[in-house]
């Protein structure tokens, strides 16, 4: 039912500016979140988000639901821009990445809080250090809860390649995480 409604909205958005605005409001949060997870910087995330939607506007006429869902198509546009962003920062490595988000837990004792902050910082560093494709996979799989087929569309790989990458990513993550952390979860 919801899918039919969205399909109708996409069709209307191909010729109606208001419908396009509605589609934008549905996805802007997720696209921004995806970009922020990669860049760690709200300004870069805003820039990538607006570029993603301008590109979507230019290409929405050519969108046909053949195999790929609209969200996979949209995330593919965002992903291509993120890949370009990584390429750019590798050429200009002085760009700062703003990582830490405040993690307030008033219920915790100060010592526990500091310890949790340290663990969190370590984990954030580990995730930030992951290669771009692995980070993308984790965001799409765990945060966006996409299927392997959709992730394959976004990343331009086969479903088998995504499964293999997923396994390798989890294994490397498990090896990087200090012993005992997973038992605490």
């Amino acid at each position, binding site marked *: 039912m919801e899918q039919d409604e969205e399909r109708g909205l996409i069709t209307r958005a191909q*010729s*109606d*500016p*208001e419908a*396009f*605005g509605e589609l*934008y*409001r549905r996805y*802007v*949060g997720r696209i*921004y*979140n995806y970009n*922020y*997870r990669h860049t760690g910087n*709200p300004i870069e*995330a*805003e820039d990538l*988000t*607006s570029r993603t*939607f*301008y590109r979507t*506007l*230019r290409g929405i*006429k050519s969108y046909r639901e053949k195999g790929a869902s609209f969200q996979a198509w949209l995330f593919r546009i965002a992903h291509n821009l993120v890949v370009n962003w990584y390429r750019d920062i590798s050429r200009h490595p002085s760009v700062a990445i703003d990582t830490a*988000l405040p993690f307030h837990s008033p219920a915790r004792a100060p010592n526990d809080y500091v310890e949790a902050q340290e663990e*969190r910082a370590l*984990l*954030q560093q580990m*995730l930030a250090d992951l290669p771009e494709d692995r980070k993308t996979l*984790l*965001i799409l799989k*765990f*945060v966006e809860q996409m299927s392997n087929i959709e992730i394959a569309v976004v990343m331009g790989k086969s479903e088998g390649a995504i499964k293999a990458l997923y*396994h390798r990513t*989890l*294994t490397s*993550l*498990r090896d990087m*995480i200090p012993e005992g*952390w*997973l038992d605490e*979860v």
Partner: protein
Amino acid sequence: MKSRAQRYIVLQESMPAEEEQALRQVVVCDMPPVVPSPAFVEQLGSDLVAEARRHYDVEQRRHRVTWTVGLVGGGALSVVGGVALWFFVWRKRAIAPSPVAVSPVAAHPA
């Protein structure tokens, strides 16, 4: 006969489900949803709608021009084609020798 499991060597075992779940939780906890500022969402939204309006207007105008040019061009071409056909038939008729003009003497020389 060996079973399928005996014939193939397992290269990589899959991760236990509970371990995968724990890793998922660790990653998700580390990535709480981040929302864009309402001002940004509002501004980009109105810019996009304005751009969409302009974009669709241009497209519609282009579509209309293409149709008009196609219609006028097609009409003109069909008129030219009709005239050319009429001229071709008319010329063929004019060139064709009349059967009365053929002399019987010339047809049967002595």
